[in-house]
C-alpha cells in the first residue's frame, strides 16, 4: 500500500495530521479503500487533504516520490514515503532496428515481453475479442521459444565450433562410399546444461544404425535377425536401429550397443534345434511350394487331363509343375499373397488362370 503525505504549510497541522496518519497506519487493513477526503479548517483556510490508497503495482505514470538525489527509500522518520518504481518504457523501445539480436537472447531463456520487440499475441480470444497481447502472457512463457536460435546465431556458433572439427576425409565424397566403408553409424548428443548439476540426463543416449544389406547374412540369418530385432528393424529402409540408454554413461551405452549388434549377428547365424519346427504360419513370406494353392492347381490340372496308365503320378507332377503356365500362375499367386491386392496383381492372376485353364 502506498501513502502520499501532503506537504502542508502549517507545521502544527502537519504534526496533528501525522498523529492521525500514524494511528491510521496501526489500524490499517490491506483492502482497497475508496478515496477519502478530510476537510479541515484552520484559521479560515480550507486545506484539502486527500489520503490516497492505491494498489502497489501501478504502472505507467505514477510519480516517484522521494528526492532523486537519494533513490533509497527513507525508512522511519516522520514522513513515511514509499517509492513507486517508475517504468515508463520497456527495453524494446530503446532497441535499434539493426541491433545484434544474438546479444539479447544469447542462450535459451524464457520469453521476456519487455525484451522482445515483436507485437506477438497468443491465447484464446474470449468473447469475440482478440488473443491477449504479450505483456504478462503466461501462454507465451509456457511454450519453448527459439529466439536464441536465429539463423544468424546458428551461423555464428557454427563458425565458432569449426576449429573443433577435423577435416572430412577427401576420399569419402559420396553417400554410397560412406555407406560402403562405414556402414555402422553411431549418434550421440552433447548438451550445454545449467542447473544444480551440469550433467544432462539425455546425454547418455546412444543410437546405432546399420543397414542389414551391408552385413554378411544369408537368407536364414537375415530372417532370423529381423525376427530378433522386432520393432527396431525398419523394412522400408532396411535399417536396424539400436538405442542404448540403460547405462548411466555414454561410453557404457556405446559399448552395450555394439555388443548387442555383435550378439544379434552371431545368434542369427546359429541354427537352433527347434528352428526345424518352423511352421507355415511362422514364415515371413508366402512360399508356393507345398502350399494349398499348389495342391489345388495340381489336382485341377490332373482332373482336366486324366492320368494314363503309363505315366506315374510323380512324373506327371514334375511335368505339370514345369509347365510355363503353371510357373506364371505360381508367380502371380506369390505376388498376390506377398504384396497384397493391387490392380496389376489381380490382372496378372486373371491372365494366368485364363491361360492355365485354356479359356
Amino acid at each position, binding site marked *: 500500500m502506498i501513502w502520499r503525505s501532503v506537504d502542508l504549510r502549517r507545521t502544527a497541522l502537519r504534526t496533528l495530521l501525522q498523529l492521525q496518519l500514524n494511528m491510521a497506519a496501526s489500524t490499517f487493513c490491506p483492502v482497497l479503500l475508496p478515496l477519502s477526503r478530510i476537510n479541515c479548517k484552520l484559521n479560515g483556510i480550507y486545506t484539502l487533504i486527500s489520503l490516497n490508497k492505491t494498489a502497489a503495482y501501478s504502472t505507467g505514470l505514477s510519480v516517484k516520490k522521494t528526492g532523486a538525489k*537519494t533513490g533509497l527509500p527513507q525508512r522511519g522518520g516522520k514522513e513515511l514515503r514509499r517509492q513507486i518504481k517508475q517504468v515508463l518504457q*520497456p527495453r524494446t523501445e530503446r*532497441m535499434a532496428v539493426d541491433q545484434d539480436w544474438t546479444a539479447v537472447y544469447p542462450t*535459451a531463456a524464457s520469453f521476456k515481453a*519487455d525484451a522482445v520487440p515483436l507485437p506477438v499475441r497468443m491465447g484464446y480470444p474470449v468473447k469475440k475479442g482478440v488473443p491477449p497481447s504479450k505483456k504478462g502472457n503466461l501462454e507465451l512463457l509456457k511454450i519453448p521459444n527459439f529466439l536464441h536460435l536465429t539463423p544468424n546465431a546458428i551461423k555464428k556458433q557454427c563458425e565458432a565450433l569449426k576449429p573443433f572439427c*577435423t577435416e572430412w576425409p577427401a*576420399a569419402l565424397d559420396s553417400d554410397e562410399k560412406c555407406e560402403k*566403408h562405414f556402414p555402422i553409424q553411431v549418434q550421440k548428443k552433447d548438451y550445454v546444461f*545449467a542447473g544444480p548439476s551440469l550433467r544432462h540426463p539425455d546425454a547418455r543416449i546412444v543410437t546405432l544404425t546399420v543397414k542389414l544389406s551391408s*552385413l554378411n547374412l544369408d537368407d536364414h540369418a537375415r530372417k532370423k535377425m529381423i525376427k530378433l530385432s522386432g520393432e527396431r528393424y525398419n523394412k522400408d529402409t532396411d535399417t536396424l536401429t539400436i538405442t542404448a540408454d540403460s547405462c548411466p554413461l555414454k561410453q557404457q551405452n556405446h559399448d552395450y550397443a555394439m555388443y548387442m549388434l555383435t550378439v544379434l549377428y552371431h545368434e542369427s547365424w546359429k541354427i537352433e534345434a527347434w528352428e526345424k519346427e518352423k511352421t507355415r504360419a511362422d514364415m515371413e513370406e508366402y512360399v508356393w511350394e507345398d502350399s494349398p494353392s499348389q495342391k489345388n492347381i495340381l489336382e485341377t490340372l490332373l482332373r482336366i487331363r486324366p492320368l494314363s496308365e503309363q505315366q506315374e503320378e510323380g512324373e506327371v507332377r514334375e511335368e505339370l509343375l514345369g509347365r510355363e503356365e503353371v510357373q506364371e500362375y505360381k508367380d502371380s499367386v506369390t505376388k498376390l499373397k506377398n504384396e497384397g491386392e493391387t490392380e496389376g496383381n489381380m490382372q496378372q492372376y486373371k491372365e494366368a488362370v485364363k491361360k492355365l485353364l485354356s479359356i
Partner: protein
Amino acid sequence: MASSCVHVGRQIHKTGRIFQRGARDILQRRYVGLGSAACQQSAAEVSGSAEEIVIPRKKTWNKETVLQALAATVNRDPTASNYVLQDDSYLIPNSYAQFKLFTLSKESGRNTAKYFINTYPKYFQKDFAEPHIPCLMPETLELEIEEVSEAALIERIQLRKVKAAVDMYDQLQQSGTPLSVDLTNDLLDLICLYGDQDPAPEQGSDYMGEDQEDVKKKEGIPQRDSGISRWRENNNAERIFHIMPERTRRSYGALIRGMVKYGAYSKAFDMYTDMLNNRLTADVHIFNALITAAPEVREQIQEKWELVLNLLKQMAKQDVKPNLLTFHAVLRCLRRSRHLAKVFSVFNEMKALGIAPSLATYNLILGIVYKQASFAKGHTEILEKVLDEISGKSFTPQDPDDVKFFINAMRICQEAKDIELAYKLHSVVGVGENWKLLGESYFQNIYYWRFFSLLCMMENIDVVLKWYKELIPSLYYPTAQGMRDFLQALDTDNRLDLIPQIWKDIKQMGYGNMSDMVEEILSLMAREKQSPEVQQAFADCALDIKGLYMTQSGPLTWSGISLRCITSILLAAERTQQAWEMLNLFKPNNRVPPESLMNDFLASIKASNKAQQAVELVQISASFCLPVTPSLIERVQQEFELTEEQRNVLTDLESSADMSD
C-alpha cells in the same frame, strides 16, 4: 528445454592455441564404424579400396573451451542492465543508487544464505552439484579441537582466530611442549597480518566499498584511520617474538611487515637493523615493506629519497631481486617530488630488469606527472606514450592501485579535452580482461561519466547520440549534471526535437522531480517555434510535465518559468483550449504572466476570431494590472467585432486602467 542460466559474457580474447595436441593426446582414431568384428566385410573393403581413407586424428581440448568459444560469439546488449540483475522491466535499476541497492541486496541475500548454511550444516549435507562445488558446502567455522595440542593451534591459525591462537600458544608454552619454528612463524604471520585483533566477520566486497568511498578519493595514501588500527605497544607479536628460541628471516619478515602495515614505521626499521645484526639477509617482501615505510620516518624529501636509495643499495648487496611491488613502492615515494627524470629512470630500470609493468605503474607515473590540473592542457604526450605501450595488451590485477588507472587517465583526457586519446583509452578497456580492471561499480560510473562528458563537450551530436544509446543506462547512470551536459550538447547542435524522448529517459532516471532540470527542459522547448510535428511532440511533453506539476503532493511546485514556458509551448502548438487552462492557473499560484505571452495569446485568438475569448483575455490582463492592458484593449477594439456589452466591458476596463494610472 534446458533451464536457463543466462550469462551474457564480455568478449573473451581468443587465445591462439585452443587445442592441445601432442603430449596430452590419447591416440584415439575416430572410428565411425569399424569397431566390431561383425563388420568383416567393411574391413576388407577398406584395405582393398583404391583411395586410402585417411581418418584424421581426433582433437582434444580443455573442459571449458567449447563454452568459451561459444561465449565469444556473444556481444554486449546495450539495452540490458548488468547480468547479475534480473532482466525484468520492474527490476532494472534506473539510477546509481538503485543499482547499488539491488546489487547490495543480492549480496546480502547471499551472505544470509551462507550464514544459514554455516550455522546449520546438518541440513545442507546433500550434494546436488555434479561436478562437486566445494564452496557451496557448509564450512566449519567453529573450533572443534579443544584440548591443548599442536593440532588445535594449527586449526585456530587456519580459521583465523587470532586471540584463540595466541591463548593456545601460551597454554602450549606453559605445558612445556616444544613447538616447531614453522608453526611459530605461522602464528607470527597470523598475528601480524591481523594486527593482533580478530578479523571482522566476513562481508561481501561491496560492503567494504560502501565504507571506504571517501577513502577512494585520497588516491593511494596509506590509510591510518578508518578501520585499520595502530600497532600497539607490547603486543602479542613482539612478546612471542622475544620468547622464540630461534628467529628466522621469516619471523623478522612477519614482524617488519606487520609493523609497516599498522603504522609503527620506526620500529620496523629498528627491527631491520636488529635482523642485520643477527647476520640474516632480508627478502624482497621485507624490502618492499621498508621502502613503503621510508617516507614516513624522514622529514625532508631529500632525506627520504636518500633512505630509499640506501635501501635499494642494500638490496643489491644482499642479492635480492626487486619485483613489481618494489618499484611501485619506490614510485609512491617519488609522489611528491618534482623531478620527473627520476620517475622515468625508475621506469626504465624496471623495463631493463624485465619486469612487466602493470596498470598501477602507469597510474603512479601519470599521477606524478599530471599532478596539477593545468599541466594536462598542453602536455598529453606522456599519456599518449603510455597508451601506445599498453594498447593491445591484456593486464591482470597485480596491485590494488590497478583499478585507479582508467579513471585517472580519463580525467587527464577530460582536462586536456582530447577526444582521440579518450577513444584510444576506451579501446584499451575493450582488450581481453582489461574490463575487470575498471574496478567496482563506483569507479566504472566515474570513468563513464568522465568519458561521456568529454564526448558531450567535443563531439557532434550524432556521435554523442550513438554513445548515449550505447552507454546509458546499461553501463552508466548519469548524474543530473551529466544530463544537463547532454542537453547542452543537444542545444549546441540544434537537435532540440529529441527533447521529448530525452525527457522520458530523464523521468525514468528519477530526475523528473528536480525543478531546475524540468525548468531547463521547458525553457529549451519554449525558446523558439519549431516545425509542426516537433511542436506537437513538444506540446505532448509539456502536458506531461504539467501533469507532474498538477499532482498536489508532488515535490514540483509551479514557478513563473514553468507556467510561462508551458503556456507558450501549447500556444505555439495551437492547443488553445489547454493554453487557456494554463492561463487560469497563473492567478492561484500567484504568478504574473509576461507581456509577450499576452500578445501571443491575442495573436492566436485573432486567428480563431473568438471575440469573447479576447475580452476574457483583456479581463485577465486587467486583473493582473499588467501595463500592457491598455494596448490590448485598443487592439481588441480595433481588430475584433464586438457586441454591445463586450464594448461596455472594455470601456469599463479602459477607464479603470486610466484611473489607476
